[in-house]
Structure formats: structure tokens, C-alpha cells
């Protein structure tokens, strides 16, 4: 039972993390290869604060706020660069974060932060908290998608210049996506820190950034349900196959590239296509007419 609780807690944290990146990359179309830095910011921030005596809930929130502010700054730089360069910029942010944290003695340097206080919940309670926040983030994502914010995000992701021409302040929307997404990543980080009770810089490296992006892309960029399914699957992989841990970057990076090359819509896109093909075939069998106009909607 303890093992399942651990696993579910990790899945909950990963879900928050992947859905937070989906807001930025999936909804608003801004690629990020440095999302782990914001997760790390939240983790360090919350850990330092609870160690200094602050209760867990405000520390968790503070981690989210600090990560969101950092995200806002990175978002500001994203306004200056074109899409392809954004990948490199955010990757750079990831490496900068690691380089910075490693050299700070007050953050424990290479050894990280240990002796992080217990959050004051049972393991089961903590699992419920993680899954609960993940569910809230999922509901929030579904709502954003339906709102006018999601509507405008679609336009920004699709064609920035044309979005501007119809009066959409592209910069404001990008900054909103970055701030929201990175703040949620910071919350995930705080949750992780108080679950692991010890954090080291290496956890928040490039491999993790690629893993999170793989969860989003494999699930289907922008599809909340797709990302949830992919996150659960990819979170289980290292548990089911121990060797995965040694080849994470290779495996998740490979999955990422394969999906982008062969099925850009990810699992969500595949499901949609299969569903339509099935329905088309059924229609054909029933009515024996060739329905060449069946549209992918």
C-alpha cells in the first residue's frame, strides 16, 4: 500500500507539472525546454521557507509566486525572440538555474537542501493533497480552454501577427501563460520538496525539462486529457522498467522526437483519428455508400 501511495503522489506532482507546461506550450504555443527550473525554484523556495519556520501552506504558495515571477521575467524575454530561438533561450534558463543553485552555499550547493520539515500530513493525506491539486489544475485547464482566454491563446499559438491585427495583445497573453504555467510548476516543486524532504540540484536538470515536454507532446499538445494520460503512462514507465531510469533522457527525448515526427497530434490526435476512421467505416458498412466527405472536426 505504501508503494502505491508513493506512486500516486509522484503521479499527482507530475500531473501538475505537465499540465502547467501545457498551459504555456499547448495552449499559448510557446515552447519551453527549461520548465524544470521553475519546478526547482518552487521546490527550493518552499523548502527554505519551511526550514526557516514558516508553515507548509504559505511556503508552498510562496514557491508558486516566486516561480511565477521568474516565469514572468523569462516570458518578457520570449517577447523578443522568434519561436525557434525560444527553445534555446528557455534551455539556457534551465542551465542558468542549475549553475546558480550549485554555487550557492545558502542553498546547500551541490548537496542541496536536506532536513526539510514534514508537511504535517500522513502519507495518505499528502497523496490526497497532491492528487487534489492536480485535479484542480486539470479542471482549471479545461476551463481556460473554453474561456475567451483560451480562444485568444489559440490565435496567438496559430499566427501572432494576425492575432495582433484583430486587436489581441499578444504580449499580454504570452506573459499571462508564462506566469500562470510557471507558478503552477512552482507549486508542484514545493509539493515535491516536502514529499522527498531532501532536494539536490541535479533533480531539476535538462532531463526533467525534456521529460515534462515529452509528457505534453506525447499526450497531444493542448489536449488536457491527452496530457493526463501521457503523464500517467510516462510516470509509470520508470517504475515498471527499472532500466528506464538510466536512459531517461534518451528514452523521453526519443519519444518526444518520434511523436513530433510521426504523430504531431500525440495520443489525443491519434485517438481522434482512429475514432473518425472507425465511424467512417461503420457508416460505410451500414449504408454501403462511400462517404468521401467525412470531415475531421
Amino acid at each position, binding site marked *: 500500500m505504501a508503494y502505491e501511495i508513493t506512486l500516486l503522489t509522484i503521479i499527482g506532482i507530475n500531473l501538475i507539472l505537465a499540465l502547467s507546461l501545457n498551459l504555456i506550450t499547448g495552449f499559448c504555443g510557446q515552447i519551453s525546454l527549461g520548465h524544470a527550473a521553475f519546478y526547482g525554484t518552487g521546490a527550493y523556495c518552499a523548502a527554505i521557507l519551511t526550514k526557516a519556520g514558516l508553515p507548509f501552506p504559505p511556503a508552498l504558495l510562496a514557491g508558486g509566486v516566486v516561480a511565477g515571477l521568474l516565469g514572468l521575467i523569462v516570458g518578457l524575454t520570449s517577447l523578443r525572440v522568434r519561436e525557434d530561438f525560444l527553445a534555446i533561450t528557455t534551455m539556457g534558463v534551465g542551465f542558468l538555474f542549475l549553475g546558480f543553485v550549485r554555487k550557492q552555499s545558502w542553498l546547500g550547493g551541490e548537496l542541496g537542501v536536506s532536513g526539510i520539515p514534514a508537511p504535517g500530513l500522513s502519507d495518505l493525506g499528502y497523496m490526497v493533497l497532491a492528487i487534489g491539486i492536480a485535479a484542480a489544475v486539470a479542471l482549471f485547464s479545461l476551463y481556460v480552454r473554453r*474561456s*475567451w*482566454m483560451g480562444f485568444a491563446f489559440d490565435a496567438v499559438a496559430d*499566427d501572432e501577427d494576425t*492575432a495582433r*491585427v*484583430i*486587436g*489581441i495583445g499578444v504580449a499580454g497573453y504570452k506573459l499571462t501563460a508564462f506566469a500562470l504555467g510557471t507558478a503552477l510548476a512552482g507549486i508542484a516543486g514545493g509539493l515535491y520538496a516536502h514529499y522527498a524532504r531532501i532536494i539536490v540540484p541535479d533533480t531539476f536538470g535538462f532531463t526533467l525539462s525534456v521529460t515534462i515536454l515529452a509528457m505534453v507532446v506525447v499526450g497531444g499538445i493542448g489536449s488536457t486529457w491527452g496530457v493526463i494520460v501521457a503523464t500517467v503512462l510516462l510516470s509509470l514507465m520508470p517504475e515498471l522498467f527499472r532500466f528506464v531510469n538510466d536512459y531517461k533522457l534518451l528514452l523521453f527525448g526519443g519519444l518526444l522526437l518520434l511523436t513530433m515526427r510521426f504523430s504531431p497530434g500525440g495520443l489525443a490526435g491519434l485517438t481522434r483519428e482512429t475514432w473518425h476512421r472507425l465511424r467512417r467505416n461503420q457508416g460505410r458498412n451500414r449504408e454501403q455508400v462511400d462517404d468521401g466527405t467525412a470531415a475531421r472536426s
Partner: protein
Amino acid sequence: MTAPLLALEDLRVRFGGVAAVDGASLTLEHGTFTGLIGPNGAGKTTLLRLIIGIVRADNGRIRLDGRDITKLAVSRRARLGLAMSHQIVRPFRSLSVLDNVALAAGRRRTRDPLLSLLHVKRSTERARARELLDLVGIGDAADAEPAKLPLGYLKRLEMARALALEPRLLLLDEPLAGLNHSEAHRLADTIAGIHQTGTTVLLIEHNLAEVMRVCRRLVVLDQGRVIAEGEPRAVMADPKVRAAYLGEAPHAAA
């Protein structure tokens, strides 16, 4: 004396070695309907992109109602009442035809990113979008994906989307391209109707027959500068204009 709706003063833009717009000045009074013509590569599209702000001027000023908007962001200009339809169509490919227009119709909802999160309902904007699609004659394609539509439809989608912004100045870049004779005739009438309701229109069009029919005033651009303007028939009789078109028969001059 009130300022003209739009005043362009000595605009210049270079792309590498090419002077696309080379000292163009132009004034549009409130409520006017002006045709902008000129040979291929004259700089018409670039001039429109300067007005809307997608292209930045190397030199010169743009004034809207007397206010200098030369450095204003594109989205701010749109909210001040400028709208444009692209020559090279640019639909949002991830949205249906209807939602392409509805999104523009909801410009008050999208004005502020944070407030946009408070609204979900799209029915008012979609109803308005449906009206506009009917107005330009593509109501039958409302639920289609733009990627699957022919050029004539996408051109009219561009126009419906621009209209959804309820602009004070409507900038149209070859809206009749890709339409057959009777479709072009009907859409030109629609544009004239929009002008009648008080919208100022600047229309780039190679279809001279329709331009001569609906526009009250003609401006001719050649090599990035205005070489003639005034009453359409007088302008077309101008030897300078004839020379500019020499060796390049005007398209579809029926």
C-alpha cells in the same frame, strides 16, 4: 477644422536594397471610399501593412484623427478602429471559419488577458459572425475548417473578420481576387454598402472595372510613391498613369 481620419506623411520603407515605399504621402477624409491601384510591386500591400503596423516605417509619420500612431502597437491600432484583410490570406487554421470571425467580434472580451478568463459564452459573437459571413456570401462555410476552403472563400473570410472589428477605417487588399465575375460584382456592392453605413474604406484592387464602378476617388502608386490621385476617370486619363501601366496590361479591365 477637424483632422482627416488618416494622414500618411512621407513614408519610406526599404527591404534590403528595395525601396518598397519611397516617400508616400496620402490623406483619407472621414467617410470616403478610395481605390488604391498600381502595377505589381508598386508598394500597395506594403503601404497597407505600414498603416496597420505590421511593417515599421524607416521614415515618415502616420496620423489617425491627428494623433501620431507611427509607433503604436498593431493591436492598439486595431482597437482604435483600423482593420485590414490580407492579400495573402491568413486564417487561423486551428479555428473554424465561424470562430475566426467570432474571435474578432469579441475584441472587447479579449482586450485584457486576465479579464478574458472570466468569460466563456461565445453565442453573441458567433451570432454576429454568422451575420457577417452571410453578408460576404460564405455563410454556407461557417463550420468548415479554413484549410479545406478555396481562395475565393478565404478572401471573403478575411473581409468578414476585418468587419467584425467594426472598424472606422477598413483596409482591403485585393478582396475580389479568386472570385468569378458575378461574385466579384456582388462583393464590390457589399463593400460599397459598408461604406454607405459610414465606414471609411481604402481598397487595393487589380480588378479595375469594379474599382472604377464603386470608388469615388482613386490613388495610383508606382515605385513606392503616389503618382496621381483624384476623380477616377480623370486619374485614368492621366498620361503618367498610363505610362506606369505600360507594358503591363491591367488585370481584368473589362
